[in-house]
């Protein structure tokens, strides 16, 4: 087991799985074709009894395969992180545990990685109905609107990247989907690569309203993380001043009507609405201020920049090496 490997393949096994033996046979052929030494790590989320026993058979027959099983249900982000922790290669490839892409197109990503740090698959050409396409388009459009980055298929589980990315990015919650966005924010180069969609990759089940809400909240979270982490008041201030401005307009209108036209002020319900909005706005603003204080008091431990390289000629005093300034 202590042979060096260049490529670690992480396959998160969650609820949705296909026949793993058949699937892995397909992947194996493609991985051999790449020509790098590799290992495969299956990470099974809590519960997956059947998948685990299937995997044990695969692992028994193949010494490149190892299995990590989580004690309880944690979700895809944690499953992936557990896999990354086990990975020994300098390159990490994630693959879905079901037929999503044709294995032979995985090699496309390897070719691209020379020019970037993270290559993500994009299933293209894409099967599926018009409604599916619209749903997908609007998700990515919204993301582009908020993060300013264009992606076309964040649902694709095929991603190949350099190890150093996982050292800097901690995935939690539902953020595995937005891994490219977060990586880009850390200054890594991300590139989409067309991969062939598997004919068996069809959408199963249906998205419920809850799913849509989750996606929406995810996008908002990522938006906040990317744009305002260091400046919460810019975000809260925007929402807060909008609410207060609206409230102020209502209240002012009422007051002017009282002053100029003698309409009674005290028993008009609109007054309540106006002051409620004002109060809401001020409270949101105050939240933003607290956020600023949190950032300020912790700014010392959060570096905003990532240094790629420090160059200086070594000179005799030895102080020119420019170690990390802590």
């Amino acid at each position, binding site marked *: 087991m202590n042979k060096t490997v260049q490529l670690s393949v992480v396959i998160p096994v969650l609820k949705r799985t296909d026949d793993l033996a058949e699937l892995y046979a397909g992947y194996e052929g493609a991985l051999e074709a790449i020509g790098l030494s590799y290992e495969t790590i299956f990470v099974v989320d809590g519960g997956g009894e059947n998948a685990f026993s299937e995997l044990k058979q695969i692992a028994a027959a193949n010494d490149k395969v190892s299995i990590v099983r989580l004690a309880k249900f944690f979700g895809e982000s944690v499953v992936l992180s557990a896999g990354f922790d086990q990975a020994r290669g300098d390159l990490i490839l994630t693959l879905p545990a079901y037929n999503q892409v044709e294995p032979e197109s995985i090699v496309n990503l390897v070719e691209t990685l020379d020019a970037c740090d993270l290559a993500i698959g994009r299933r293209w050409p894409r099967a599926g109905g018009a409604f599916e396409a619209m749903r997908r388009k609007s998700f990515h459009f919204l993301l582009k609107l908020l993060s300013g980055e264009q992606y076309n298929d964040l649902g694709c589980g095929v991603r190949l990247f350099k190890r150093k990315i996982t050292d800097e990015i901690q995935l939690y919650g539902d953020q595995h989907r937005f891994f490219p966005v977060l990586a880009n924010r850390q200054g890594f180069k991300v590139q989409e690569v067309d991969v062939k969609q598997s004919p068996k990759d069809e959408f199963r089940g249906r998205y419920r309203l809850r799913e849509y809400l989750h996606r929406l909240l995810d996008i908002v979270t990522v938006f906040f993380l990317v744009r305002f982490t260091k400046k919460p008041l810019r975000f809260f201030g925007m929402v807060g001043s909008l609410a207060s401005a609206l409230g102020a307009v209502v209240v002012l209108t009422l007051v002017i009507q009282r002053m100029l036209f003698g309409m009674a002020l005290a028993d008009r319900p609109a007054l309540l609405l106006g*002051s409620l909005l004002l109060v809401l706005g001020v409270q949101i603003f105050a939240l933003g201020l607290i956020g600023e204080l949190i950032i300020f008091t912790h700014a010392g431990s*959060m570096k905003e920049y990532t240094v790629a390289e420090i160059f200086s*000629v070594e000179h005799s005093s030895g102080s020119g090496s420019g170690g990390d300034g802590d």
Partner: protein
Amino acid sequence: MFLSIVVPLYNEEESVAAMHDAIDSAMSGFERTYEILFVDDGSRDRTFELARELAKNDPNLRVVRFRRNYGQTPAMAAGIDLAQGDVIVTMDGDLQNDPRDIQNLVEHLDKGYDIVVGWRHNRQDKLITRKIPSMIANWIIGKITGVPIKDNGCSLKAYRANVIKNIPLYSDMHRFIPAMASLAGSRVAEVKVRHHARQFGESKYGLGRIYKVLVDLLSVKTIVSFSNRPILWFTLLSLPFLFISVACIVASILEMTAGNGMPVPLAGTGVLFGSLSIVLILNGALAELVYKTGDVDFSILARLTMSTSDQVASSDSDNAS
């Protein structure tokens, strides 16, 4: 005394060599050991390659490269973090600042100031788009922070390393360093510096939008006010709302005693604003908690200042410009 000169560079391939020469010749007439830190803020042109060539022949020059473009404040913060000098000078990489002014700035630090800020008194920029907005911004910043500096936007500044390294620098905060430094009661001097028109390229770091400056200003004001008087600042904020609340409630009681029945919207408004002021005060308590758990130690800053201002009690009247 060891001097660190921090220069953020962003797409400055035309100026980087000239910049290095200018600093070199300015420092040759000034007997101090020094280092130069060029911080390449993710330039897309050949800035880093050129700077690295310069560094090969100059043991005093270190070049730091960011993985991507982060902005001017992070670039300065990186330079300051990596600087090894007792005195840190920051300046723009576009040749608009003149390295010959470094000497003057550092001499003012020797007189006992903690921060010396450059003032571009004959600024060579467009009047309408650059100078007037910045005049307004400087006036507002001065009024609100209580540190009346004529030119907050000038990058040419000199700091004592132990002061600047204790001030958290992030986002666009470099504009407010003097105000932040006043947290610790640092002594700030303002010195006239030369300013040249841009020789190459476009101005890369504009004044930013008014909204950003205003919002940042409010944050800085909160941070600064809060540091010495916990809760008071939030209580102060809540006072106008408390006043409105009391006025509304009194008015509705008067209506009631006059026999007109209770005016529900007015009384409700009173209650709303009353609750707002209570929430604000509680926010103040929360903010104090945040300070307690944070890693900015204000007592360290205060002690620092005491020791530096003790040395220089006499030179107080020496006002620059």
